[in-house]
């Protein structure tokens, strides 16, 4: 398969404390000029996104596709997957601010799958998701909670 590239553009004006920026999904155009700032990154978001929120969307999206792929490969494609991802940034002594944790809360409705088979697919998805791999390599903690809904 050929390499796939995706671009994003940001404009930032001013210093960190009082400046502000805007974030655009340049490859797809799916979103444009989303405003962000330091206060809304580290305190209440006030309707504004942040790097950590974008990472939560990226990790949630990557893991969900990975799990759909594993379940499909096992002959049991999902009816529906609901995944919530929460990314935590914290100040670490001597290292400044770091992304320290990603929590994935997975609810799966899959015909013909028991809790053991689902746990196996979740484990494989965690190993296969390209973004999970990067976070692991950087020492970011990842926790996954899985719930199997009744089949439909």
């Amino acid at each position: 398969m050929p390499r796939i590239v995706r671009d994003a553009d940001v404009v930032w004006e001013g210093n960190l404390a009082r400046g502000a920026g805007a974030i655009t999904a340049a490859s797809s155009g799916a979103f444009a000029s989303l405003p962000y700032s330091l206060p809304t990154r580290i305190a209440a978001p006030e309707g504004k996104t942040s790097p950590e929120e974008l990472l939560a969307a990226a990790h949630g999206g990557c893991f969900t596709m990975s799990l759909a792929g594993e379940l499909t490969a096992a002959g049991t494609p999902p009816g529906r997957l609901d995944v919530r991802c929460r990314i935590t940034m914290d100040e670490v002594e001597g290292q400044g601010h770091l992304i320290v944790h990603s929590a994935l809360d997975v609810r799966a409705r899959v015909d013909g799958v028991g809790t053991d088979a689902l746990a196996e697919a979740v484990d494989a998805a965690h190993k296969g998701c390209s973004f999970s791999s990067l976070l692991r390599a950087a020492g970011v903690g990842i926790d996954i909670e899985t719930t199997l809904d009744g089949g439909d």
Partner: protein
Amino acid sequence: MATDRNAKVTWTGSLMDGSGTIEGVGSGAFGPLDVTWTSRAEEPAGRTSPEELIAAAWAACYSMALSHGLAGAGTPPERLETSVTVTFQPGEGIVKGAIEVVGTVPGIDHDGFVEQAEGAKRNCPVSMALTGIPEVTLAVTLAPA
């Protein structure tokens, strides 16, 4: 103090024929955004992807870190334009990140700007979470102030 941010994603059906939605994010700033395997691995056709979202997070984080470094050096920026390209190789993973930054920074010379740009590449929290990417490049341009 720790900061939490969250997003909710749903998916229905198989990987190739199914589809997903980034239903929303905690801030409410965007969503719902559709995602599919085809638009991730081929042409985007207006749909975002995990790699594009990583690029957006990285460009946003990098710009803040660079602004902070420049201000600390006594030369706060007027304007920074940052583009990040993330390269995904199916079956292999995320293999490359490319940061390009154009800065309008009164009172700084090229070497001073490059030094701060390199520092932001090393130190921004998103860069620190992506140290597993085998190749990360940086291209720096200082615009006339």
